[in-house]
């Protein structure tokens, strides 16, 4: 009439050691995380540099969203050394950077038709758009939530005219612009503000 107990996970038995070690380890890890954790601040990795002339096939290789027209920042800003503010005309006078009107593009491209087939193809797109009075709908790359107010002018004044790269990366080496820093992430802003010891008041940006 004696019967044996079914074997079972034994809290009050020798299975315990593992559990204790696991549990303890986890606890320590969590505490460590809480105290030490910080999001890694922005690291700009080297964008691909490509030849000035290229064929349509190459474009697939570029990072970042494909634009209706392959506008090459690496040529305009890089090799031709055009100032950012030439096109982004209000970046240093307003909170909004401003994107160039079609007129601005045509200002040059009435005469400049491009050196190789690919470039010509792209420029033709532009000219057609201008002819048909159809503004080009660019794909947006950098977003800020609408409850954030980021005055470009203030930052350019504080960091200098070449400061664009701090957030947007080195576009002079980007054939097609892609997001280098996650500017949508408040941590990105705060890290910079902390490093420079500047205003961290909430209503500096949120109102």
């Amino acid at each position, binding site marked *: 009439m004696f019967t044996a107990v079914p074997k*079972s996970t034994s809290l*009050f038995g020798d299975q315990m050691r593992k559990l204790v070690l696991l549990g303890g380890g986890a606890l320590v890890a969590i505490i460590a995380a809480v105290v030490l954790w910080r999001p890694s601040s922005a690291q700009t990795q080297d964008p691909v540099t490509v030849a000035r002339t290229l064929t349509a096939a190459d474009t697939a290789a570029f990072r970042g969203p494909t634009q209706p027209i392959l506008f090459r920042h690496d040529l305009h800003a890089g090799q031709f050394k055009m100032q950012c503010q030439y096109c982004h005309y209000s970046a240093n006078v307003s909170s909004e950077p401003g994107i160039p009107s079609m007129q601005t593009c045509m200002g040059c491209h009435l005469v400049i038709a491009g050196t190789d087939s690919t470039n010509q193809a792209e420029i033709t797109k532009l000219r057609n758009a201008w002819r048909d009075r159809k503004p080009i709908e660019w794909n947006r790359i950098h977003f800020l939530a609408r409850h954030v107010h980021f005055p470009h002018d203030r930052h350019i004044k504080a960091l200098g005219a070449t400061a664009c790269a701090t957030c947007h990366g080195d576009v002079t080496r980007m054939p097609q612009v892609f997001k280098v820093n996650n500017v949508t992430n408040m941590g990105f802003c705060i890290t910079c503000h902390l490093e420079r010891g500047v205003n961290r008041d909430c209503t500096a940006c949120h109102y």
Partner: protein
Amino acid sequence: MATTAHESTQTHADVTRDVIGTLSAPGKGYYILLASVSTALLIGIITFIILLKDGLGHAGYNPPVMWSVFITTFVFWVGIGHAGTLISAILYLFRSPWRTVVYRATEAMTVFAVMTAALFPIVHIGRQWIFYWLLPYPNARFLWPNFKSPLVWDVFAISTYFTVSTTFLVFGLIPDVAAVRDHVTGWRKKVYGMLALGWKGTDEQWRHYSRAYLYLAALATPLVLSVHSVVSWDFAMGIIPGWHGTIFAPYFVAGAIYSGVGMVLTLLIPLRKALKLEHMITDYHFDNLGKLTLFVGCVLFYAYGMEYFVAWYSGNTFEQTTFWRRAFGPMWWAGWAMIINNAFVSQLLWSKRIRTNLTALFVISIFINIGMWFERYVIIVSSLGNDFDPWAWGVMTPTMYDWGILLGSFGWFGLWFTLFFKHFPIVAIQEVKEMIPMPRRKGAH
């Protein structure tokens, strides 16, 4: 050790048999119960989904009344929990003999009540999907919660209370689950075997176990008092006349225990019948529960009186207006519902005949539940409705959505409790045995 008639008549074997008997296959009634609580829960869930979709506007909020039924129900459920821990922990420390039979039920009630309450802060906030911002977790914004806010105190108090009371319940269950394991067969044996965590009741195990249980009780005791104090500070820390009271902590704790005991009676009286535990849970226990109710009832009576006295004595026009309107303003009916149900009804319990008459006791317990819900409703809504700036005064009337959520909360609580008492010993086997002396060869020593 104070013993009473029924214990000597029973042997350890009887206890095991009776209690484990309650886990036998359920009848039709049980399934009806299960169905009804599930329906209530479903209604609650649907209501919540609508609120989540459109916003809280559907509920009857009427600024300046920005808290109403949801917070009321939250406080109500937190309060319910307290009787459980009081009976299982505090009375344990006081070695009160009559608790043993009822404490398991009350403790289960505590855990489920807190589980219910814990849902409400989420239901209540405007942007439910980011409720976790109240927790101090590392985030991309480098932001931490505001530890000066009573609401964050609440988060910690409630979660601690939930964790500890759950631990307490589970810990107490282990030996009983082991007993169940040893008296069932087939797959259930396997399952309970798992849950028993290899408990065998050896001397060594008992040695640590009973000590640990003592310390858990010792920790739970101040906790139970603190939790409702913290909840009361949700209001007392506000400057609203009718909230800003120094007596709020004890006042709320008393109220909590009062409502808790009320709920214990509401649950225990039918349960005793359904599970045929008449010879275990006897008049003796209800008599004592009745006395407890009477006691906290009187404390509450005093607190009510004090509130009005202080309002009058302070000479503060805001306080005075608030309390005048609480009794004679647009919400007079709620105000009086609270005072009559709580302060006056409990006075009936002076009579032993009523204390031992289960029907009467049951009816009273229902009154208490309603009364205590209204207490919170009155404190929250009527105080907010007419505070400092008369121009902004307003009266809110609850809508279907408020009631839907309230109903759902009962469904949620009921579902857990119903499942519990059919699958786990509702009476603490080992503690009851502890009180029954074991047979001896030579006569008693």
